């Protein structure tokens, strides 16, 4: 798993609120493309946000984002703790 540094996580938090300066945002967005752990953190932050805002949630299967990514034809990264269970190979739809 990728270790997430505090600066990046703080940037993610600000980006989530639309409050990250453009230059920092560009850096973070590049990182998001390549960092599964960071995307998992985004998912947990969004789940917490939904709870705080009083939205009803239903915990979905750990590999749902990967199944969707596979279906639309993008290489999903290996699963990481905090978003999923153990990685297992899947068939490609492409």
């Amino acid at each position, binding site marked *: 798993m990728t270790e997430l540094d505090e600066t990046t996580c*703080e940037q993610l938090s600000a*980006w989530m609120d639309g409050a990250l300066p453009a230059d920092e945002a560009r850096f973070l967005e590049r990182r*998001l493309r390549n960092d599964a752990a960071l995307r998992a953190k985004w998912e947990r932050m969004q789940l917490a946000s939904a709870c705080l805002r009083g939205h009803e949630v*239903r*915990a979905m299967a*750990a590999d749902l984002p990967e199944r*969707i990514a596979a279906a639309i034809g993008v290489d999903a990264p290996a699963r990481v703790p905090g978003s999923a269970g153990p990685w297992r190979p899947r068939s490609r739809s492409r």
Partner: protein
Amino acid sequence: MGDNELDLELVRRVQRGDKTAFDLLVRKYQHRLGAVIGRFVHDHSESQDVAQESFIRAYRAIGNFRGDSQFYTWLYRIAVNTAKNHLVAMKRRPPTSDVEAEDAEHYAGAQRMHDTDTPERELLKEEIAREVSATVAALPEELRQAITLREVEGLSYEEIAETMDCPIGTVRSRIFRAREAIDARLRPLMDSNRVRP
């Protein structure tokens, strides 16, 4: 840029071919959409399939999304239609009345049709909500106030800075520290309990 503007920006990127942006939208909304689908499709395994199908339909149709409504409202409608179609295909009768997107998520409890979540799943939902709530309650005052003003009151960083009489950088830091505290409790919960399809 606020929450809706960020969604719109992600949508624009998907429309330009950035599939990672779609992954971020999936991760953002899957659990809320799951609750909506669960009102129609009670079997959890089936509801996972309907959620997957809903997102795939949304991806295929996203070129037509013009931002006239909020992205989540648009996504919600796709999910409701997908869930109803699923019930028809399974020769089950979809509910005759629908619930508007803005109201649906606040109907927990009394308005719920049925929920056949397993006791373990119910426990997980409750645990998530309880952990988030308990963590916020235990935060130092300045962190609790900052995250509450942001998430519950929906204030911008500038408005929070004015309310709390502190620099915007301090607001950003306090909100981040509050989220880190919540995440520290949420992560092991999801690692150990997250359901398998």
